[in-house]
C-alpha cells in the first residue's frame, strides 16, 4: 500500500470518529436546506423578490459553499495546526515519506467529505423541496471544482503557518464569518445592495455562489466569477506551498 493511500485511509477513519467534524463537514449543508425549507413559509414557492426563484433554490448553492467554507476554513487549518502542534509533520520528516504526503492525504479526504456533503444537499433539495438537478452539469462541476480549489487554498495557507489547532481554528473563523456573509448565508445576495454584491463577487465564497447559481439555473457562469476563483486557487495555493512550515 502506498503511503498516501495509507495516510488517507487512516485520516478518513480519524475524521469519522470526530462527531463535530462529521456534523459540520458532512451533514451541515443538507441540514441548512432542510431548516430553510421547513421554517420559512413559502420557501419552495417562486418568489418575485428573488428573481422568480424559490428561497430553497437560492439557498441550495449557498449551502454548498457553506459546506466548502466550513471544511476549508475550519477543518483544514485546525487539522494542519494540530499536526504541527503534535509534532506529526516533524516526525514524518524523519521517515522516507515527505510530510507533504500527509497534507495531500488531508486534502483528498476533506475534498471527498465536502463533495459527499454537496451531493447530499443536491439530493435533499431535489427530493424534499423540488429543487431541480443542476441544469448545466458540466459548468456546475467546473464551478464546484474551482470553488473548492479557491476555498481550500485559502484554508491551506492558514494551515501552512499556524502553530496549533486552536490558532488554526481562530484564524479560520476570522475569515469564515465574513466569507459566509459574502456568500449570502445570512441574507441572500439577491437582496443585498449593489455595492455589497460587487465586493462579494471578488470574494472566493461570493464568486463560488454566483458561479454555482448560474450553472444550476442552466446558464454559463460569468467568466469573471470563474477567473476570481482560479486566481484565489493559484495565488493562495502557491503562497501556501511557499510558506508551509514543516516543523
Amino acid at each position, binding site marked *: 500500500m*502506498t*503511503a498516501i493511500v*495509507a495516510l488517507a485511509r487512516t485520516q478518513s477513519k480519524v475524521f469519522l470518529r470526530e462527531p463535530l467534524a462529521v456534523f459540520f463537514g458532512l451533514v451541515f449543508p443538507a441540514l441548512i436546506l432542510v431548516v430553510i425549507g421547513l421554517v420559512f413559509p413559502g420557501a419552495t414557492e417562486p418568489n418575485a423578490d428573488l428573481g422568480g426563484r424559490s428561497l430553497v433554490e437560492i439557498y441550495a448553492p449557498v449551502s454548498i459553499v457553506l459546506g466548502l467554507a466550513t471544511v476549508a476554513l475550519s477543518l483544514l487549518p485546525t487539522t494542519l495546526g*494540530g499536526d504541527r502542534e*503534535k509534532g506529526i509533520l516533524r516526525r514524518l*520528516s524523519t*521517515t522516507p515519506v515527505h510530510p507533504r504526503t500527509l497534507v495531500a492525504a488531508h486534502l483528498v479526504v476533506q475534498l471527498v467529505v465536502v463533495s459527499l456533503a454537496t451531493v447530499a444537499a443536491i439530493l435533499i433539495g431535489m427530493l424534499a423541496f423540488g429543487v431541480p438537478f443542476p441544469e448545466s452539469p458540466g459548468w456546475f462541476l467546473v464551478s464546484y471544482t474551482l470553488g473548492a480549489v479557491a476555498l481550500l487554498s485559502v484554508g491551506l495557507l492558514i494551515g501552512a503557518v499556524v502553530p496549533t489547532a486552536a490558532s488554526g481554528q481562530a484564524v479560520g473563523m476570522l475569515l469564515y464569518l465574513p466569507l459566509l456573509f459574502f456568500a449570502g448565508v445570512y441574507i441572500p445576495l439577491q437582496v443585498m445592495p449593489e455595492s455589497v454584491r460587487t465586493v462579494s463577487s471578488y470574494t472566493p465564497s461570493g464568486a463560488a455562489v454566483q458561479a454555482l447559481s448560474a450553472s444550476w439555473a442552466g446558464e454559463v457562469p460569468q467568466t469573471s466569477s470563474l477567473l476570481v476563483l482560479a486566481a484565489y486557487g493559484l495565488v493562495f495555493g502557491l503562497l501556501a506551498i511557499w510558506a508551509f512550515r514543516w516543523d
Partner: protein
Amino acid sequence: MPVIEVDGLTKSYDDKTVVDDMSFSVEEGEIFAILGPNGAGKTTTVESIAGLRTPDSGRIEVFGFDPLVDRAEVRSRLGVQLQESRFQDRVKVREVVETFASFYREPLDVATLLERLGLGDKADTRYSRLSGGQQQRVSIAVALVGRPQAVILDELTTGLDPQARRESWGLVEELRDSGVTVVLVTHFMEEAERLADRLALIDEGRLVALDTPRGLVDSIGLEQRLRFTTTATIEDTWLTALSDVSGVTRSGDEIVVAGNERMLFSVVSLLADHEIAPDWLQVDQTTLDDAFVAITGRQLESAEEIS
C-alpha cells in the same frame, strides 16, 4: 566503519551558538548516550544527524551518507523518536504504526512489534486513552517499524513514572541486544549510567567528555568517601595512619573518611581489629553527576528537574 560520524558540527540561532564544533562517532551495535543539562544542544545535535537541521558548518555521515543530500538513504536506515512528538487523539495504536509501516520497503510485522512492546492489548485503543508510558512506546514502535539499523531516542523517559522508565530501559537494552545501534539523548544521569556503553557529555554546545560511564567517573579521580557512626571511641590518628586514607572529618556523630579505592577495606579491617561495629555505614558512590560537576563546575540536573 562507524554508524554515525559527526565532525566539527556547529549550529547557531540568532547569534547564539547552540552546538559548537562537536565531533564524535557512534559505533555499530552500541548504546551511545548524549548526556547534558537542558539547553546543552543535545536535541539540535541529533536533529542535525536526522537531517532536520542544516548545520552552519561541519560534516555528518550516517551509514556513510549525508543526511541532507542522501535523504532517502538515511531515512530508510535511521529510526527517530523525537522529543515531545505525539499523534492525533482519535487514531488507534495499530493504525498509527501500520501507517508508518507503509512508508518502508520491509517493515516489521506490526502485530508482533506491538506485542513485543507490550502494546498487544492496546492495538485498538485510541492514542489519547493511553498512559504516558504507553504513548511513549507507540513512539518507539513508530521509530522501529521500518526495521532501522540505528535509532535516535530523544528524551525517551522524560515525563514517565519510575516504573515506566525502568520498562523503557529494558526495551533499549533489548534493542541493542538485537543488533540495533542506539543513540540515547537524555538529561538523566542515572539513565546514561545504567544504559550507555559510551557517552558524550555535552555542556553549552560543546563536547566536554567522551568515554564509558565507568571510565568517565574514574578519569576525574574523585576519592571514595565512607561515612559511619559508632558509639565506640575512635581516634582520628588510627585512621589517618592508614596509607589508603587521605583525610578524616567529623560532622556530629558521623565520621567521614576519604581515600582511594582500597580505603573501604582498610578501614573496615581496622574497625574489626578494634572489635568496633559501626551502627551505621555508607559508601558514597562517585556518579556521572560528580563527574559533570568536576568537569564543568555545575550540576547536571537542576533541583527543579529532580522534583
